[in-house]
């Protein structure tokens, strides 16, 4: 059992922690090495630039984080309202009151915190009769919709590492958005059946412009913006042996390039597609994904093809998993009537806001005002907002209650799921002066139940 104890006995303030999991992007690299060199200093090894910065920032002691409570100067929220430090309990209490007074509170975020925190969030949403949604609905939600329509042939990242001889990045730029993707999982590492690493693989990149990723490609296909659906359609026809015109209409891509890609696919033994917001957030959205997933499924007749969405947030996959196993649906879950209902386009955050169909917002581990369409973000001024986040954000400027929390994966433990669904434990490498969001949400839930009289 000694091995067991070693693995589970995470000591805070350990001076030298290996195999730390980076809580930033969907790569969920779990080989980070943190060597503490002082109270708020550390040497950080193996992380990419972004992960490095996250650890550095979280370990360095900044200003003491404060709970904030807004005192409204008038009927509506105003920028010059007093937004002052308050005791934790007062903030918990106010948050509970605001949620209980709401007819349709929306609990949003979750993708950048642990499964444990999200569990509390779902319980809270069910208790108060609200909608719970996560950042998928403005990111890879379309990917999920497409999977629900046509399914997906996929695998863990290590399967790609070991087997793939053709990597296709479509509508994504891993060199800048998932920096260690190619070096850890796809293009460069030596695999069990790809012992020469890069030399055993071809790389194709499809995008609307050249990027840092296209420089790695064996073949780069530049497609006109918003024309990916047509291009995939043409590729599917080519794979079926159908004749194509010299130029694929509306795509800016010539037939020769499509045929070259088709031939690469035919001769590959194991092809892995990765796609990003270039497909999910351009014209066609989930149907772009539908097209690529359908292509992948039918190619499995002749060769092995897998497809993976390049999930951005480090635990957006985990949020979807726990949402699903608890409610039956991966995001945009309406629990207002005591049971789960799901219909993105109706029950998703942006759609609720655009129809003024929400009256209280509870934001955890997310900064929607910074990211949502302006018209939706505007609505944050019109209703009570509760924000739980390690740092003040643009969204917290609109909050009535702001509760700082520990950085999950640096100051608090938890569980996260990598972009391929592999669950990895997040370690704690430094103590926190504020509670974790798991604890905060649990306290709010408890307070809500108390105020309700345990009904």
């Amino acid at each position, binding site marked *: 059992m000694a091995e067991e104890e070693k693995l589970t006995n995470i000591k805070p303030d350990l001076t030298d922690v290996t195999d730390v999991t980076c809580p930033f992007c969907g790569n969920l690299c779990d080989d980070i090495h943190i060597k503490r060199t002082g109270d708020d200093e550390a040497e950080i090894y193996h992380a990419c630039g972004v992960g490095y910065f996250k650890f550095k920032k979280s370990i360095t002691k900044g200003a003491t984080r404060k709970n904030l409570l807004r005192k409204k100067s008038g009927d509506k929220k105003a920028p010059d309202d007093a937004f002052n430090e308050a005791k934790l309990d007062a903030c918990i209490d106010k948050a509970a009151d605001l949620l209980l007074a709401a007819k349709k509170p929306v609990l949003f975020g979750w993708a950048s915190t642990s499964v444990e925190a999200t569990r509390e969030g779902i319980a809270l949403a069910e208790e108060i009769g609200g909608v719970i949604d996560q950042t998928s609905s403005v990111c890879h939600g379309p990917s999920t919709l497409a999977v629900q329509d046509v399914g997906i042939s*996929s695998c863990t*990242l290590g399967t790609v590492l070991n087997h793939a001889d053709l990597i296709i990045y479509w509508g994504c730029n891993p060199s800048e958005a998932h920096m260690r993707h190619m070096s850890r999982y796809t293009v460069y590492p030596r695999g*069990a059946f790809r012992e020469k690493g890069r030399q055993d693989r071809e790389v194709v990149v499809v995008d609307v412009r050249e990027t840092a990723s296209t420089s790695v490609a064996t073949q780069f296909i530049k497609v006109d913006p918003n024309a990916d659906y047509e291009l995939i359609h043409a590729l599917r026809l080519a794979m079926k042996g159908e004749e194509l015109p010299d130029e694929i209409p509306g795509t800016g891509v010539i037939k020769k390039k499509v045929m070259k890609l088709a031939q690469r696919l035919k001769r590959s033994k194991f092809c892995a597609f990765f796609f990003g917001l270039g497909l999910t957030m351009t014209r066609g959205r989930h149907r772009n994904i539908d097209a690529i997933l359908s292509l992948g499924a039918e190619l499995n007749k002749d060769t092995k093809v897998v497809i993976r969405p390049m999930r951005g947030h480090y635990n957006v996959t985990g949020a979807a998993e726990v949402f699903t*196993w608890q409610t*039956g649906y991966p995001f945009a879950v309406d629990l207002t009537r*005591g*049971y*789960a209902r799901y219909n993105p386009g109706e029950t998703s955050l942006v759609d609720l806001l655009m129809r003024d169909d929400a009256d209280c917002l509870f934001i955890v581990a997310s900064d929607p005002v910074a990211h949502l369409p302006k018209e939706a973000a505007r609505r944050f001024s019109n209703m009570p907002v509760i924000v739980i986040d390690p740092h003040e954000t643009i969204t917290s400027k609109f909050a009535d209650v702001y509760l700082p929390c520990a950085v999950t994966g640096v100051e608090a433990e938890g569980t996260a799921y990598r972009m391929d*669904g592999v669950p990895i434990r997040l370690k704690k490498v430094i103590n926190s002066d504020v509670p974790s969001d798991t604890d905060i949400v649990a306290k709010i839930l408890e307070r809500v139940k108390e105020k309700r009289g345990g009904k």
Partner: protein
Amino acid sequence: MGLILKNGIVFDPKNGIRGEKMDLFIKDGKMVAEKDLGKKAETIDLAGKVVFPGGVDIHAHIAGSKVNSGRLFRPEDSRMRTVPRTNVTRAGSGFSVPTTFLTGYTYSEMGYTTVIEPAVPPLKARHTHEEFHDIPMLDKTGLLLLGNNHQVIEYLKAGDIDRCKEWVAWMLLATKCYGIKCVNPGGTASWAWGKNVDGLDDPCTHFEVTPREIIRGLVDINESLGLPHAVHLHCNNLGTPGNYTTALETIDSVKGLTNKERSVLHITHLQFNGYGGDSWRTFESRGVELAEKIDKTPNITVDTGNVCFEPTTTMTADGPFEFHLHQLGKQKWINFDVELEAGTGVVPYEYRKDVSVNAIQWAVGLEMVLALKDLAKIHLSTDHPNGGPFTCYAEMIAWLMSKKARAETIATLHDAVKSKAAISDMDRELDLFDICLITRGTAQTLGLANKGHLGIGADADVAVYDIGVEEKDGATIERAFRHCAYTIKGGQLAVKDGKVVNAVTGRTLWIDTKPRTDVIEKDLRKRFEGYYSVSLDNYPVQMDYLGESEMVMERCKK
């Protein structure tokens, strides 16, 4: 506070109790003698209702990565069954793939108290445990997918049984699982290259090891480790016409091996390997032949894998089979290969009364039971949800207990059920003792000494059914077994009048295999540093994930 269950008609096959009116005594979560009850005790008067030990489901896909994929990609299944929260229970949804809370409540409302998740991919075992954490009412454990594990296959190829044994032991402890699961051995490993195997002696892609070698290797290791349950096997060639020969060969592959306590090989959802003919057109039932084989073979047990006529979701670790099913029915398909270890597939499916093959499949599952003399060797299952949701068990029980109920169903089925199966001519009707045996005898097969019976020292898991001992009406039987009168879990009243009254927590069961890590250290480093995409340090499932748990067995050093 103790608990007395008075005036129940008790069935307890393990202890030879066949419908005796007797009182039962419970204290601190265990069955006790009356003298050990203590001064304070509550009483529930069961007023002549039938009492079984709590159900132990030996094979149901309820938790983990592929189950959740089934939920995620089927919102249309989720909305088919929607259950609002109450002041005792959380909300739930899902007809064939219920959510975790709903899974626990529904099983409990049927009198089940222990369920085995039969297919845990090691790399994602943490996910299974996270879902276990959210399944109330039941004790749970998992069986670990090892039959297509690359390291296992390489060891077997090299004849390195000692290292293979420690690797298996290490994997079981690292994942906190209970036993060895083998799914289409060699076939799913080949599926990483888009291939399959076509029989016990067809070497798998790249490794060139045969399924027979994998099965035998794992069975030998299982015996050597002294694990509580046999190797749990999903045969090659599942779902194809004529595949009963594969089942027979597989049964013969462990000829001569013995174990005093239990079987050495457990073949799961055998119905799906019970087919004669050589095409869908000539497809026919071999249920009776399989029953005869089982009776003749002392060292195996099976579970049925019955089908019922409901829309459902197939999900197995038989990657190539699921692709094949997707191509047949053109339904959406999820495929998921897990590096170096396993592969899974999920495809929606509906068994229809007017489809000849489905009607025959229905017959196969029932024939295997009705033709079998020794019912201690067979257990009821639907391979939930592959053959149908576990909520169908009640209907299955009705079919087994009532020839009339069978006849009524046969009248609605495709004619092939009469010409290509024996079921129409089978008169046998199981009684309550038999039903208890095929749904609770699972504990014996699993090596769970404190489950599946009501003897002193057993866990106080009790199911009470509102049914007359001589009941023969199909609809009444189904109603009684779908919603029981009471369920006691760990000595606490959990269900009353078919509804959860107390959302009790269950435990995760696991075994300490005490692996000799030094023996495999070099291979562990090589695999993890070279080929796994996670670090060795992060791979094992931490104890934190188990919540309330019970270590059921410790490996003895031999």
